[in-house]
């Protein structure tokens, strides 16, 4: 069975340490899944090129163009790896915007691995105090190990043991995905070029009448 891991990377510089961490996390998860005999596809969504469509979507209420395509990738994801830089003691505004424009319930029940980056380790609790509550609100299943990388972690192999944490988090995500059926998203109108999309039959009207106590 092919599993899709979708990476959402909120880094704004190029190259970005956020993307670096995101790639290492998705590789760890994909590797663990492949060890268990699964096929894995990894798709990366970089938020920087989506900054303008994201602002538009907040104002118009619908995602357009490349953003609509990114939302469709998320819809079909078996698991997400989401990584944000720390801005002013929290995830970045750009990172939050992406989750703001997803329709309600889209991520419900989806396994998610959290990551964050910053200049120093003093911000590491952003993962627990900001990101974990956000993804709890979105009703995702967040793996126990969230991975924080300060700039120093990319060099220091004795203290932070970044690689060890990445591997543990990747294995946790893989274990969650392997125990679940593949995601089959419900059809619904979303994109710009969504011709042929069909709404599921709605609740029969007799039922809607009964819900307000009226006899059909």
């Amino acid at each position: 069975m092919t599993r899709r891991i979708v990476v959402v990377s909120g880094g704004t510089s190029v190259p970005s340490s956020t993307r670096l961490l995101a790639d290492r996390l998705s590789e760890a998860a994909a590797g663990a899944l492949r060890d268990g005999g699964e096929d894995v596809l990894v798709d990366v969504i970089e938020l920087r090129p989506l900054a303008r469509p994201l602002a538009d979507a907040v104002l118009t209420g619908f995602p357009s163009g490349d953003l609509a395509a990114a939302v469709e990738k998320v819809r079909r994801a078996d698991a997400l790896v989401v990584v944000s830089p720390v801005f002013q003691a929290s995830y970045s505004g750009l990172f939050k915007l992406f989750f703001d424009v997803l329709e309600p319930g889209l991520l419900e029940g989806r396994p998610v691995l959290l990551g964050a980056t910053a200049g120093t380790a003093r911000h590491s609790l952003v993962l627990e105090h900001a990101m974990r509550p956000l993804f709890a609100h979105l009703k995702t299943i967040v793996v126990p190990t969230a991975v924080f990388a300060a700039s120093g972690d990319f060099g220091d192999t004795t203290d932070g043991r970044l690689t060890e944490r990445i591997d543990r988090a990747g294995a946790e995500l893989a274990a969650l995905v392997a125990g679940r059926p593949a995601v089959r998203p419900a059809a619904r109108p979303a994109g710009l070029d969504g011709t042929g999309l069909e709404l599921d039959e709605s609740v029969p009207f007799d039922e809607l009448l009964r819900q307000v106590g009226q006899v059909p």
Partner: protein
Amino acid sequence: MQFGIFTVGDVTEDPTTGRTPTEHERISNTVTIAKKADEVGLDVVAVGQHHNPPFVASSPTTTMAYIAAQTERIILSTSTTLITTTDPVRIAEDYATLQHLTEGRMDLMMGRGNTGPVYPWFGKDIREGVALAVENYALLHRLWREDVVNWEGRFRTPLQGFTATPRPLDGVPPFVWHGSIRTPEIAEQAAYYGDGFFANHIFWPAAHTEAMVSLYRRRFEHYGHGSADQAIVGLGGQVFMRKNSQDAVREFRPYFDNAPVYGHGPSLEDFTAQTPLTVGSPQQVIERTLGFREYVGDYQRQLFLMDHAGLPLKTVLEQLDILGEEVVPVLRKEFAALKPAHVPEAPTHAARVAALTDAEQAAQADLTGDDTIDDTVEAGR
């Protein structure tokens, strides 16, 4: 097919002059615009209902009656009548009165309203929006069809032995459209009753409208009102026109860039590509509008939003001249040529009275026929 305009009745600053019309000016302008629409040969003018600034349109039937008294031909409608927060008894009375005053030259479009605080101001809860629309319309539907109503529901005080007066003109209730952008339950509701379904259409990609109309058509057929392509569909549209399309773009851009609904977001060019908004020559508007049919099928009513985003009265009146003289006559001809004979025309009071009379005569002629009884029910829908 009917062509017309719809408005929400907003008071918005003209971004090119910084001037905001007074409420009095806006209300007077609404009447002037409606009379102009009648004069240039449009079929429908629809006014909004809102209960919060910057909107002035809180009392649609008052405005509609005033316009009707000064026009001869144009059908008065709403965009929309708030079925959630307005007492269905008051809707039954107000619109039936309007129906008598206008000799049937009216219909109405139900909408839920999406402004959270308006609900508690009327003792309701926006989270119950769909349930309110379902219950209130179920009551309204009966009030116009049953002389004496005994009724009990969740949201309103019960009625025992209640008669809504006046009774509908000629025994035919006003035709009802149900408007929605993306709530399948409302398409379902319109289909259940065999009422019209109006897709707002503007501000969103066409795929949403296509999916909603398709659902409504399938369910219309399911409930036995006719084949899917005989369902009664209306669409919104938004245009700005000048002889040269570059002039239209240049003049409309500041209004677009600052518009309350989508301003400060996507570019005019992006939004034109993503939604049915058309800014250009009359010919471009004709071609775009004819294209709507390709994804919703043959439909009965096309309304354009012409007077929003702070456009001055003079400009709106010029737009109506172009619409009435250059665009609608061509659209009328082209749509009529494309429409198969079995697809019904847009409903009018006269046609619905005639259908009811025919059905009654058929019932007289053949009292034993089950089919004719069904026809009577159908005509009275």
